[in-house]
Every structure is written in structure tokens, then in C-alpha cells.
């Protein structure tokens, strides 16, 4: 039995699940960001596996775009986090309740 598309899709689903679990369980904002990166990478793996399966390179183009968007998102997000830390002296989501009440 050789490698099939199913193997890669299951790996992708597992990685996405790990990222989603981290997103709801962790409290540090930077770790939440890393969990989002894990989920993006899981989606990329599925895209590239489908691209290999159909021998159409468009899937790799999608993955390429996702990487560029992730880079822009990381840059802006980390700048926001530096600013939040400067004002609140904390990066825990429990402390970031400025919109409460």
C-alpha cells in the first residue's frame, strides 16, 4: 500500500486540529498567533497535496499567496502586540478586556 492523498489530508486535518485546540486553550496572545500559523500551514499542506494529486500547479500558487498573507499578518499583528504590551504590560488575553462594560 503506497501513499495516497488520504495520508496527507489526515495529516493536514490533525495539524489544523492541534492549531484550533491551541487557539481555544492558550492565553498568551503570541502563542495564539503561532496557533493561527499552524492552521494556515495545515491548509497549505492540503492545497499542495491536492495540487500533486491533480498535477495542476495552481494549488501551489494558492499556498504561495497564503504564505505572503501570513507574512503581512505576522508583521502587523506583532506590531499591535508590541503596542499592547507597552500600554497594558501584559500579553494574556485575560487582561485584554478594554471593551468590557
Amino acid at each position, binding site marked *: 500500500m503506497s*501513499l495516497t492523498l488520504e495520508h496527507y489530508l489526515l495529516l493536514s486535518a490533525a495539524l489544523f486540529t492541534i492549531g484550533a*485546540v*491551541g487557539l481555544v486553550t492558550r492565553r498568551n496572545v*503570541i502563542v495564539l498567533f*503561532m496557533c493561527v500559523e499552524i492552521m494556515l500551514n495545515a491548509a497549505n499542506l492540503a492545497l499542495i497535496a491536492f495540487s*500533486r494529486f491533480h*498535477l495542476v500547479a495552481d494549488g*501551489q500558487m494558492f499556498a504561495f499567496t497564503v504564505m505572503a498573507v501570513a507574512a503581512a499578518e505576522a508583521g502587523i499583528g*506583532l506590531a499591535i502586540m508590541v503596542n499592547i504590551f507597552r500600554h497594558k504590560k501584559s500579553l494574556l488575553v485575560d487582561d485584554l478586556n478594554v471593551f468590557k462594560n
Partner: protein
Amino acid sequence: MTVEQVLFYLFAVGAIAGCSGVVLSRNPINSAVSLVAAFFFLAGNYVLLHANFMAIVQILVYAGAIMVLFLFVLMLLNQRDEELGPRKVSIAPLLGMFAAAVVSVSIGAGFMSYRNATANFPTDVPLSFGTAEQIGRSLMTTHLLPFELVSLLLLIGIVSAVVVAKRRL
């Protein structure tokens, strides 16, 4: 087992272990380093899928640029241990298990409904598949508009990162 299968399982276990390390480790710096390891294993999987260019970009952009930015910010902020939050037991892990069940079942069901997921990969891969030449050609012809939009997005990203991180305008 063929060499390809051995490599796949090696890379898969490595990627899952690295991503689990991100979620499980308490110190964000350990999370970042295990995420770098996971990205390297994913790049190995991309090579197995004949996406050589994407594997190189994964290492250069993700492991090289994005994660260095993460580590840079983590070390700039330099959180002490008490700032990492109380070591309290909360309802979060239970919530996480529930989320994991829902997400994995729904994604798995979606993927399994794909009609020929268990079919083998086609073996006659053209030599040019996934090379930088093919990707570049495609970016400059078929996918020119998304390419330009992404470049615009990156420009906006650069400017807004500077604007947000400045103390005052």
C-alpha cells in the same frame, strides 16, 4: 515500506510533535522553536509532494523570516515567569478537547467525502512540476492579478506595521 513512506511518517510525526510542542509548552520561546522544527518537517513533506520550490520558500519565509520576527518580539518583550499567567487548572483543556473532537470530525468527514481520496497519486510527474520556473511563469501570466494584489498587501503591511508600532505619529 518504501523509502517514501518511511520519510512521510517521519515528517508527519515530526510535524505533529512540533505543533503539539507549540500548544503544550508554557514558555512562548519554546513554542516558537518547536514551531520552527514543525515548519522544517512540513517542508520535507512538500518535497515528497514534488513541490520543491514551495519547500524552499517554506524554509526561507516561514522558518527564516516569520519565526525570526516572532522570536525577536518575544525577546524584545522578555516576559518574566509570573507574566506568563497563573498555573491554574481551568476549564480550558476540556473546552479544547470538545473543540478538537468537533473540528477533527468535521474536517475528516469533509475530506473523506472527496470522491477519490484513497486513489494513488499519479506516477508520471512531469519534470517541470513545482519548479521555480513553472511557478514564476504562472505568476507572471495566469495569476498576475493575485500576484500584484499580494504585493500591494505587503506594502500596506510594511507601512501599517511602522505606523502601529510608532510611539506617536
